[in-house]
């Protein structure tokens, strides 16, 4: 079986949604996830690696009780897909500004005790990341070419800035989580979930 046919969606689909389009800067941490530098200086992420990580992270997330998974996105374009992902798999989401103390201060109304944190961007979701570290939670994060792996325990290398990229990543991750549970198929998922509908609308 060729690499191409074993991908979750075609390499073209990843490319059309700019999932592999990194940034002009590359952090030293991200070297092993980068395929090459484009002529215009953009670092391109390696699609087969991204694809493989989506599978293994879906399997990893399924080792936790769904309500104990917390998904966060301070970044605007991540908010709708992160929320739809959480709804689809039964996880908890906190999008927009993360209320400080949500993971550390039991006196707050927003306080919750998840078992794993999923961040859309470790740089943007710093507050949630810090609190997850303080409380000993494992952290899964979408990391772009310019992100650091500091305090990220499992990385999902992908463009975490683009509207379409974030939609496809969360759409695929939801599908794969539900497939591991035997709750959907590629066909059923595509029929019930229009990818365009997962894109941020603002």
């Amino acid at each position, binding site marked *: 079986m060729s690499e191409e046919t074993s991908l979750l969606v075609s390499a073209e689909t990843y490319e059309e949604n700019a999932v592999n389009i990194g940034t002009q800067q590359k952090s030293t941490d991200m070297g092993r996830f980068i395929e090459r530098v484009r002529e215009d200086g953009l670092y391109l992420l390696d699609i087969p690696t991204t694809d493989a990580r989506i599978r293994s992270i879906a399997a*990893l997330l399924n080792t936790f009780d769904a309500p104990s998974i917390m998904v966060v996105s301070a970044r605007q374009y991540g908010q709708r897909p992160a929320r739809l992902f959480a709804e689809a798999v039964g996880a908890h989401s906190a999008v927009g500004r993360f209320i400080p103390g949500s993971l550390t201060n039991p006196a707050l109304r927003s306080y919750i005790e998840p078992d794993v944190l999923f961040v859309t961007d470790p740089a943007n979701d710093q507050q949630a990341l810090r609190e997850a*570290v303080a409380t000993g*939670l494992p952290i899964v994060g979408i990391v772009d070419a310019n992100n650091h792996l500091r*305090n990220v325990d499992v990385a999902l290398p992908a463009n975490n800035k683009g509207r379409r990229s974030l939609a496809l990543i969360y759409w695929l991750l939801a599908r794969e989580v539900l497939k591991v549970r035997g709750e959907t198929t590629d066909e059923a998922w595509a029929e019930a979930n229009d990818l365009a509908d997962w894109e941020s609308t603002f």
Partner: protein
Amino acid sequence: MSERATHCTSSGIPLEEAGSTTFPCPGCFKPIGRSSRVRNQGVPYKCPNCGFVGP
């Protein structure tokens, strides 16, 4: 939650301090442990069971 690691997979130190964590290996679900230092410095780990390299 599943089985917990007692030691850091990268450095071997016992996981006692705040800021350390344990989670199932994404490749094989055996426990991975990470001390606060290796997390903070983004130090790689390799699963001794299946070879998965993280983060």
